[in-house]
Every structure is written in structure tokens, then in C-alpha cells.
């Protein structure tokens, strides 16, 4: 495959990734607007679409992240059908945290890979590696949230809902402590 075709392919992949994530958020906003019966939900979904369009066009972090979090309440209302009134908030939060973080990352990478005059193979490879690491780290976050959710769910069988929050917080601190310790041992090791 010649160099030029590789550049074009890399560029197309990045554009597709950005476009897919943005499309996912647009669809989410549409679903939220349809299924949330209140005017507040409709207003928040409209605000999300406007901010998302601005963020997508200007590749801005703030607008992209803000657009996602505007859907928090409408999405939680929809998730109530699947997860119940309490856990829907956590599900909505996790979904939006992951999607908005990935969108803001793709925005930054696309500045490098969508350059009008193309990009060399090394630049594309380095960005690809970083993208993989970012995805893995997001998966770690997701894993922790699921673990904490499961533990909290188990605790909620015995204790009341307020206690779940406290249990969740304690679990959170323990999880982060474990992660930081693991990262510390890895960071101390010489690399490269």
C-alpha cells in the first residue's frame, strides 16, 4: 500500500471514529427527546445537539463534554425502565463519562491526523498507540464502576439506599488506592 493511500486511510479512520461517536450522542439526544415526556428533557436534548454541533465543528473540549452531560437527567429517566429508579443514574453517568471523554480525545487526535497536507506514517502510528492506551484506560474506569456497582448492589440487600452511597464511596476509595499502588509500582520500573 503506498504512503498516500495509507495517509488517506488513517484520515478516514479518524474521521469515522469522531463521526460515529458524535452520531451516537446525536441519537442519544434524539431518543432522550422522544422518550422523556417533560419539556425540560426536550430543552436539554436541544441544548445537547447545539453544543455537540459546535464542539464537533470547532473540535472543542468544553462544548463536547458539556453537550454530553446535558443528557444526564433525560437519559437517567430512560434507563429507569431497564435499571430501576436508583441505578439508572449510575448507568447514565457511566455512559456519558465514557462517551464524552472519548469524543474529546478523538477531537484532539483528529487535529493531527486530519491535517490538510496529510501526516507521515510515524505520526499516525504514535497517535494510534495513544488511542489504544486511552481506550484501555477508559475500560479500566468502566471496570471499576461495574465492580463498585455490584458491591453496592450486594450491600443494598442488607442496608438502606443512603448506606449504598456511603458504601460506594468507600469502595471507590479502596479501588483507587489499589490502582494507584499498582501504577506506582509500574512507574518506578525503568522503561524505554
Amino acid at each position: 500500500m503506498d504512503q498516500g493511500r495509507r495517509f488517506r486511510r488513517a484520515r478516514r479512520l479518524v474521521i469515522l471514529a469522531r463521526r460515529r461517536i458524535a452520531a451516537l450522542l446525536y441519537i442519544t439526544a434524539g431518543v432522550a427527546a422522544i422518550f422523556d415526556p417533560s419539556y425540560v428533557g426536550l430543552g436539554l436534548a436541544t441544548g445537547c445537539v447545539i453544543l455537540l454541533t459546535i464542539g464537533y465543528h470547532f473540535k472543542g473540549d468544553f462544548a463536547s463534554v458539556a453537550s454530553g452531560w446535558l443528557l444526564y437527567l433525560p437519559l437517567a429517566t430512560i434507563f429507569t425502565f431497564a435499571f430501576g429508579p436508583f441505578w439508572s443514574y449510575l448507568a447514565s453517568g457511566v455512559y456519558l463519562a465514557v462517551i464524552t471523554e472519548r469524543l474529546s480525545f478523538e477531537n484532539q487526535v483528529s487535529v493531527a491526523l486530519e491535517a490538510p497536507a496529510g501526516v507521515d506514517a510515524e505520526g499516525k502510528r504514535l497517535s494510534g498507540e495513544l488511542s489504544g492506551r486511552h481506550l484501555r484506560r477508559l475500560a479500566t474506569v468502566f471496570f471499576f464502576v461495574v465492580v463498585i456497582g455490584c458491591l453496592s448492589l450486594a450491600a443494598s440487600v442488607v442496608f438502606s439506599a443512603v448506606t449504598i452511597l456511603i458504601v460506594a464511596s468507600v469502595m471507590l476509595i479502596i479501588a483507587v488506592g489499589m490502582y494507584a499502588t499498582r501504577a506506582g509500582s509500574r512507574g518506578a520500573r525503568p522503561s524505554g
Partner: protein
Amino acid sequence: MALKNKLALILIIAALGIWLSVVTLSGIGLAAVPIILILLVDQGVPFAGGGPCKLSVSRRVTQPKVVTGELVLVELTVTNEGRDVERMVLEDQLPSGVGITRGSTYLVCALKRGAHATLRYEVSLLDPGDVHFGECLVRVQSLFGLTEQRLELVAPASVRIYPRLLSRRVLASRARALSFAGTSPSRFKGGRLEFMNTRRHVYGDPLRDINWKASARLGKTLVNEWHAERGLDCVMIVDFLDQDLPKVGRWSARTDVIACAYELSHALIGSGNRVGLLILGDVLVRLQPGYGSRHLRVLLERLIKAQEGSVWSARDVEGFLEKFFRRQYRFRGGALFFVTANPGLDVLEAVRSLALKGFSCHTIVVNTLEQESVALSELRVAGEASLALGTRVARAETEWFESQFERCSKVYEWTKDAGFVELGGS
């Protein structure tokens, strides 16, 4: 380490959620769980990794000397000599007047300790002169981009851009215009261009001048006599005054003036003349008349390095000629070539005054009206009608000046496509 807007936003959302949860005794604030996890997972590694961030940059350009329009590959390498960098944005800052033809000046990557990343791009350099690459901006971020450290690093490199020597078909009028025979001896000493006579051999005559056939026929040693080729002392006065150098946006007539002066000096030196240089502008540049390709190279270097300005004007020309070109000034045998893109009254007065003092003056008007018009239309500062009117007025002004110059000097118009055209000449 600076905090980013994104971090502030998600912290506000988390705090608001926790507050609402406490007030309403509900799970509305559970969004804080993934947010805080993201924050702590993001910041966990840099805290644990520790150590200062130490990056070094180096730059390499493939060719330090190029001709206008030639492509130059620039490689900017960042080496990590400190802790692991989870996410790094490298942004090179291009000097003005440099256009990218291939590649990007922006790189996003991770950089482990001891590793290096290279940013490659190809630039096209169009304006003669020196281009200095210098600063680049490095933003060291956490993996989720919540915190950032900005570093401005310097990786110097220079590229010198030379004008392309325009080689074109020499018209009869141009050949006549640019061939001079002066009073100074040419570098071709004892020039052998035109046979004159034969004479008796005297002690010291070179053997190569002996006419063997005639000597054998007449029984005495005869040598050939040749016309010694004579050159002219020329001084090229290049006008880099701000007010005489049209500029529109990024376009400047400087490129064309340099190309014209280079072509003129090449033609003059090629004809065996001695060529000196005086550049008006920011800093006075002067070069004593000299011969040969080495001198032409020096002359070209001076032309490229010269910067436009408003310190030295045409009023100062006479003083400089007297001061720096004394012999040439005293004998009044030399020729002066004024090269200007937008002749003004100062240049006209100087030419008049020097012509009255016996100098053979030549004015070369570098016609850049077409390029100026194109640059204006690209900037969209005026409509088609206004541009056409402006071009006509500028053309009329130039023609008036040319008619005034014709009274005291020979006038040539130079354009990129047509080269030198003698105006009002036979």
C-alpha cells in the same frame, strides 16, 4: 501543571450531583462515581510515577540552502529524558511566509522515558531570504487531558532561499541593452576576442601570440595583436525602501526585485563588466565593483540578506558613491543601474542629479502590477471594478515616472515573464 476547562466542568457536575444526593436523599448524584474515578485514574499515574518532566528537542532540515519553490523536509524530534509522558501534544510554529506542502505541524502521542518522537513535514519556500525555525510548543497532558503542562522549547534551524536565475531567450533588443563596452580593463586581460594586426616580436611577448605561418612566410618573427576587451564599472542601486516596495498581505515585491537584480548582475558580470552593489533600506549594504562568478555569489548573498526599511533612501546615493566608490565616482566613467519596483520622487531626483554629473544612468522599473492585483483579489479587499481602476491608475503613475526617467537615463521595464524590455529606445 495547569487544570483544563474540561476538569473544571466535570468537577462542578460531580459536586452538584453529590450535593443534590445529600439534599434529596436520592441517587441523583451517582454520576459523581465515574467522574471521580476518571479523575483519580487519570491523576494516579503521574502522581505515582513522579519526577520532573524533561524533554529536549532537535531540528533537522534536509537542505540549508535552496532555490525558491524547492521543497525542504523539516524533522523535529522530541526526546523524553524525564518521567513517562502519558499524552503529549507537539505543535511546531512556522515562520511567516512558509507554506506546508506535505505533513502536519501537530503531533499527539505518548512518550516513554528515553523514547523519542519525530514530527515531519515538507515546506515550500517562495521568498528569497533567510527563514529561521525556532520555537515549538509542547503540551504535556495526563491521559484523559484533565491537567496540562505547557513548555516552549527552542530548536533552531535556518534555511537560506536563493532566487531562481531566470534563463530566457535573449531578444536582440535585450542583448543590445545589456551588453556594455566600457573603459576599465576586463577580467579577460589581453582579451582575444577581436584580431587587430600583426607586429614584430619583442622580448616578453607570449609564445602563444606568435603567428607562425606569417613568420615563416616573411622570415621574421611576428606576433598577433588583439583588441583588449574592456569592461564597465557598474554599480547596481537596489531600492528596498519601505515606501517603494509594494506589499499586499503576505505578498511583497521584494522577491521580484531580488530576481531582477540577480538577473541584471548575472548579465553584466557575464559580459565581463565589474559590478558593485548599493542597497537602500534598513541597513546600508555596499559592495565594491568586482568580476566573476565568485563576486556574483557574494552579491547574491547580500541581496538575500538585505531587509526593507526606511533608513537609507535615494537621497543618500550620491554621498555613498563619493565615499565608497571614490575612483569610479571621480572618473565618472561608470554606469549606475537603479532597480526599483515603485519609483518615487526621491529616486527621480537622484537619477537626475547623477546624470547631470556625468554618470551613465539606467533605471530598471520592476513591474509587479499584475502580481499586486492578484494578491489584492485573493484578499478580497476590493471588487473587480475597483481593482481594474486601481491598476489603471497605478499603470499611469508608473508610465509618468518612466517618461520622467527617460529624460535623464535609459529606462527598462522588467517583468518576471518577459525579462528586460527597453522603453522608448530604438
